[in-house]
């Protein structure tokens, strides 16, 4: 088994991330905004309604959000590679497509994990405290799992697209709704039926819920259910992503 190509694909994602400071900082703006505007804006109301400390509730949601955005973006980057021609270089090489896909997915997910950790640290600054610091060690693999799921989903979608025209479409009709209807910002209890149904099929809901289970010890579905659902979703997106990627023609 030749791990070289997978390793350089992984390394490439990390190098690109480390070199684009603007992307790194830009990706931190959104979680910061949510922590400030919602954390401090809604916090008092949430507390008055008997929900407890809102920052505690919000932090896992914001961490999941940053992972969602970064990993989907990593997957969708294939469109850039196609447009700048680099995709061709990898596709004609004597390397199996699944190896290229796996290396790139691991790279994208690693970048998203790093981004998630940075946001986690920012949450600390805003007063977030997990029930126990050791639980952070459980949160990291969970964050990686969520990152893998959305990187493969991004890859699956981007493999079918020719140019960047579709990007706003993906942003507004997939990423944003996934975020807002995931329970990242509000509790899932007592939602109207329609919205509850959407949260039920939204993989991010389970990601957010699992992080809450681990970090603040409260959860809607329970950690085990979350984990099983996330793994099933990951299996589906991996199969779909690998298939779409293997069908690319340039």
């Amino acid at each position: 088994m030749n791990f070289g190509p997978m390793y350089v694909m992984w390394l490439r994602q990390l190098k690109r991330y480390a070199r684009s400071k603007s992307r790194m900082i830009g990706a931190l703006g959104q979680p910061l905004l949510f922590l400030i505007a919602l954390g401090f804006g809604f916090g008092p109301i949430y507390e008055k309604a008997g929900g407890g400390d809102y920052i505690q509730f919000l932090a896992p949601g914001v961490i999941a959000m940053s992972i969602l955005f970064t990993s989907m973006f990593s997957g969708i980057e294939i469109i850039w590679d196609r447009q700048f021609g680099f995709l061709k270089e990898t596709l004609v090489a004597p390397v199996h497509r699944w190896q290229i896909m796996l290396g790139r997915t691991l790279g994208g997910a690693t970048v998203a994990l790093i981004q998630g950790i940075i946001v986690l640290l920012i949450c600390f600054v805003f007063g977030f405290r997990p029930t126990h610091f050791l639980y952070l060690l459980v949160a990291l693999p969970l964050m990686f799992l969520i990152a893998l799921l959305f990187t493969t989903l991004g890859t699956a979608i981007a493999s079918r697209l020719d140019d960047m025209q579709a990007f706003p479409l993906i942003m507004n009709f997939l990423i944003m709704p996934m975020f807002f209807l995931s329970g990242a910002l509000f509790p899932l209890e007592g939602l109207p039926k329609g919205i509850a149904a959407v949260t039920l099929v939204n993989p991010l809901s389970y990601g957010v819920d699992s992080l809450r289970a681990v970090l603040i010890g409260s959860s809607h579905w329970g950690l085990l259910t979350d984990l099983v659902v996330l793994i099933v979703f990951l299996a589906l997106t991996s199969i779909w992503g690998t298939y779409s990627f293997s069908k690319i023609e340039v």
Partner: protein
Amino acid sequence: MEENIIVVKNLTKQFKAFKAVDDISFNVHHGEIFAFLGPNGAGKTTTIKMLTTLLHPTQGVIRLNNFDPLHQQHEVRKSFGIVFQDASLDDELTAYENMEFHAVFYKVKNPLKKERIEYLLKLVDLWDRRKSLVKTFSGGMKRRLEIARGLIHHPKILFLDEPTLGLDPQTRNHMWEYIKQLNKKEGMTVFFTTHYMEEADKVADRIAIIDKGKIIHQGNPAELKKITKTKTLEEAFLKLTGRSIRTEEASSIEGMRAMKKLWGR
């Protein structure tokens, strides 16, 4: 062993209503330098894409190193290297990193890897800029890097799609010297496309002239001149196709090609 390393029979590629490659057949012998000569939009790149597993043919048979690009993609990909006509570098990596990436993908290991990367970067005069990000490079520098990268691993068959487009004469000479050397020493077969007459005349053992998706004639340069009773290849082309290679007339087919490029496929 079969005498021909590339065999193409009745190859056709249709994009919707438009035939980019129209029923072409040709063979390339082991160890020869073969040129595909034709104006822009003649179907050269589409043919190369089909040979190198990037596009599926609409019809026809291809054998590359005795493998079928449609069903034995991995074996075919092990047999060739390619320098694309348009950009295929990673702009966010340095020149050296791009070279290294390619070496790993094609299993070129140290110390050979280091040796070849240094040699080739010096050959195309980019050694001093090896640590610069490719996005800071000019068009010509990117082109040179692209060619150097394609030569790191020494494949059985090397495809070069308009390799010298945008190269200065000096680099062009260096490149061809090196490729000819590989061709002689390692028996590497070279398949290149060009719309420069001089280049095809000077470098190629045999030439296929392609125009509007069809092969009009094939043979060695001397033969072509003899058959058409002309002195230069340029005149031979004029005689065979009825038009000069450099005129870019805006025919309806060219209009459709432009549309095709605009809409992706």
